[in-house]
């Protein structure tokens, strides 16, 4: 399967799959963070001008420093790898071994964001992401971090998604790949239009019972593979 997954081998001997986030999702998160910061700058600027008069610019230097350099570090460490922009997009930063990011790694990757941002349009960061197998910008390389999709809500059990169909054994023995493809079809069926369902199911022509709609037939096999007992 072609997928942007990064595998982590845990001490328990199980391979955890991390779904790595690509440049587009991360650019959107970056833009959202940028607009949040801009709004904050405006508010602080107005406050400082009314509070301090002409000396406001010296304090703004400090505020910009906090916003540009430390904002992502604080959010990533204290809010579980997510700046507000990342939270909205549904991505988060983790160490490459899947553990939570801590101060040193977050500091490194965000100090190097300044280098990724060069020359002005995040070109180095983008080039680095496209050149690496799991979309790491320069800061991710140095800090050993990844940006992954956060599965925030536990998904419903697949059984709830499978349309009810009376189980039917396949007409001949299936390989495990074939079985898992049919199971996956069953899980996704609810998200497909009836025409597309039939079109996809039609590809498995030898499995389809004659005189039955392809999708209905394949869903019955999927129900059997999940563990349903065939009915007479």
């Amino acid at each position, binding site marked *: 399967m072609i997928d942007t997954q990064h595998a*982590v081998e*845990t001490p*328990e*001997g*199980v*391979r*955890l*799959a*991390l779904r790595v986030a690509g440049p587009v999702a991360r650019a959107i998160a970056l833009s959202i963070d940028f607009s949040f910061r801009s709004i904050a700058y405006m508010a602080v600027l107005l406050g400082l001008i009314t509070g301090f008069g*002409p*000396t406001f*610019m*010296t*304090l703004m*230097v*400090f*505020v*910009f*420093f*906090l916003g*540009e*350099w430390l904002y992502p570090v604080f959010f990533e460490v204290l809010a579980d790898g997510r700046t507000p922009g990342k939270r909205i997009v549904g991505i988060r930063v*983790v*160490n490459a*071994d*899947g*553990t*939570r990011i*801590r101060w*040193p790694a977050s*500091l*490194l990757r965000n*100090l*190097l*964001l*300044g*280098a990724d941002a060069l020359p002005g349009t995040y070109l180095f960061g983008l080039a680095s992401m496209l050149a690496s197998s799991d979309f790491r910008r*320069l800061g991710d*390389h*140095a*800090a*050993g971090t990844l940006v992954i999709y956060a*599965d925030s809500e*536990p*998904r419903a*059990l*697949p*059984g709830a*998604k499978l349309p009810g169909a009376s189980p039917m054994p396949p007409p001949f023995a299936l390989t*495990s*790949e074939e079985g*898992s493809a049919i*199971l*996956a079809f*069953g*899980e996704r069926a609810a998200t497909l239009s009836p025409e597309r369902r039939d079109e996809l199911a039609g590809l498995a022509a030898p499995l389809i019972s004659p005189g039955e709609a392809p999708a209905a037939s394949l869903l019955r096999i999927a129900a059997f*593979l*999940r*563990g*349903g007992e065939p009915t007479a």
Partner: protein
Amino acid sequence: VKQAVFEQARAERWQHFEALLDQLDGGRAAPGFPREYRLLCQDLLLARDRRFGAALVDRLNALALRGHQHLYGAAAGRVGAADLFLRRFPRAVRREARLALWIAIVFIGPLLACFWLSLRDPDFVYSVLSPAQVATFEDMYDPSAEHFGAPRQATDGVLAFFFYVGNNVAVSFRTFAGGIFFGIGTLGILFSNAILAGVLAGHLTAMGRAVPFFSFVIGHGAFELTAIALAGVSGMRLGLALLSPGQRTRGAALREAARRVVPILYGSSAMLVIAAVLEGLWSASHAIPAPVKFAVGGMLWVLVGAWLALGGRGGEAA
């Protein structure tokens, strides 16, 4: 085992595991969690091996990942501030002693050259800075000025403190980050700062303002110049890791170098905060006579040297 039977048999245990995770997320203890986690890992392996549906495998994967993060990510040791700044930071600096020597040469060499050039030729300053910038700096170090040693807007020591922290720490961060371009960015920033400092010192000395200028910079300079040089050291460590990774891949060498210099980044940032306090409240003060500033400034250099040379000695192996 068919998927439906498997799901039915395990549903309760998975729900229990998820409840444990929620407890851990809320900062509460979750007795029996490691055992439940290992059982879940087995379930995930089984589900993958049997090629059960992707939705089930994804769900178990997500649960296992959350568990993994609680089991392995949470208990990283907390480092006390005193331990970090008084021991780990000086140790990290001493590990880079040779590189630090080179950085000092790279920094001081152009500085002295520019100092000498602008001392000899009063117009040399204009080949580096624009007349408007020169006027600003002359104005900054005008001993009669109220806003001595700071931009005109920063009339107040506390305001100046925030300005210096924001500006100088950002410069040190940039100096570090520039190292990722094979050290070129770091060297560029160090060079330009050295040239600026040398030209300025030479020009002001030629103008007869040596005493106000040097009495101003000597105190906080002990922390500020050292901190910028240390940021240069950390940046060059990245650059050198990429240039000569040794027996490792460039990526591995880069990661190792980055981890090595993190205490230096913390330490140099702290030094810049100290420098900003001194610069805003001590260096810029008119009430303190120049000889006192020189004496205290000299002691501060000795203090910084002792901090970096002696801090955390004897515990290197730990």
